[in-house]
């Protein structure tokens, strides 16, 4: 079973939910937790343990000045403007390149080959005997997160139980993370921002056809609007976590509330049970 944890708005508590869920599940079942928030991955802070590292590379063109006759076909083909062909040189903008391989295909002189360029890493660790943590990390200054997310998901392999922590937002990083998941937990907060962004995140889930449920975090009891939204869109509320400075303190220090408090351990086990129902309902 593959469960993604996402939200529209940042800072709602995805990491709290993903970390505690995986921790509780791994007590009984072999579980993999994949950090797909590759721009700002945080799960490793909650599960410190030695890692093995693998580079993530993408292919980028290299131009052979001897074979190139400046015909300009590569520049004409490239839809991203990553190549400019001048009478005496070629200019290449790596940050615009999408690694599609097209320039190499269209060059009539075989003047373009590809070289792997590192854009980040994927690390793997085993914080406990049934828990594997895979973390994707984008190199600072690089802009394409999706290849790292893809590599992290691949490293996560085909464990029976995988939890994916997505980046905040609603675009390509989130789409890449949630694709092929059986269910998605949308974490929100009871503020106009939280609700606004939840509705956007929900649209993505509909597009991807992934059944989802909602976790309301930092609830102060004033959840009427979020609850109304969930009701009118047929979204179940899987768990409500109250606003509590004690909880925040544990989380902020990089610790897990499910380890500190038996009651929370049970709540996250219940969260998983409700996810299973979610998937069952849509099967």
């Amino acid at each position, binding site marked *: 079973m593959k469960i993604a944890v996402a939200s529209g708005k940042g800072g709602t508590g995805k990491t709290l939910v993903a970390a505690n869920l995986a921790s509780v599940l791994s007590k009984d079942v072999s579980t993999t937790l994949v950090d797909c928030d590759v721009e700002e991955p945080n799960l490793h802070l909650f599960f410190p343990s030695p890692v093995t590292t693998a580079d993530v590379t993408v292919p980028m063109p290299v131009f052979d000045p001897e074979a190139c006759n400046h015909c*300009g076909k590569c*520049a004409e083909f*490239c*839809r*991203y*403007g*990553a*190549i*400019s*062909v*001048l*009478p005496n*040189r070629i*200019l290449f*903008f790596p940050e*615009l390149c999408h690694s599609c391989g097209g320039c190499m295909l269209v060059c009539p002189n075989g003047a373009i080959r590809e070289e792997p360029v590192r854009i980040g890493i994927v690390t793997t660790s085993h914080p406990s005997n049934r828990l594997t943590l895979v973390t994707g990390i984008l190199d600072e200054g690089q802009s394409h997160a999706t290849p790292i997310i893809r590599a992290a998901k691949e490293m996560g392999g085909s464990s029976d139980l995988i939890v994916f922590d997505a980046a905040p937002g609603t675009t390509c990083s989130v789409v890449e993370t949630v694709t092929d998941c059986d269910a998605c937990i949308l974490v929100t907060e009871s503020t106009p921002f939280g609700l606004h962004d939840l509705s956007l995140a929900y649209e993505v889930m509909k597009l991807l056809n992934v059944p989802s449920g909602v976790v309301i975090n930092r609830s102060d009891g004033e959840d009427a609007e979020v609850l109304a939204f969930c009701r009118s869109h047929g979204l179940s509320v899987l768990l409500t976590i109250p606003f509590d400075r004690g909880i925040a303190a544990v989380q902020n220090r990089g610790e897990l509330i499910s380890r500190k408090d038996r009651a929370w351990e049970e709540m996250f086990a219940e969260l998983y049970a409700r996810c299973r129902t979610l998937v069952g309902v849509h099967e």
Partner: protein
Amino acid sequence: MRICITSQGETLEAPVEERFGRAPYFIFVESETGSFEAIENPFARGAGGVGPKAAQFIINHNVGILISGMVGGNAREVLEAAGIAMFTSRSAGTVKAALEQLKGNILERSEQQ
């Protein structure tokens, strides 16, 4: 010497366009004869990399001088590498006025944004 001016319309009376990559029209003028042609910018509605593509386009038209408003980083790099002089025309108003300012040497060189 061929001059390119980014324009909002197809005639010399049209206002100069501030943006380079997404300019609606490029007006090419032969400085010796004064003859000109207006070409619709094929990249105006493009999604990405529009700057470098527009730069490549005017390079392919053998332009020596560009008059525009804002020229972004990547396009600027390409134009500089191709040896095209860049001028900015904020106060000129129309294409015609900008050309006159160029002739009178009072146009500003375009600076990195």
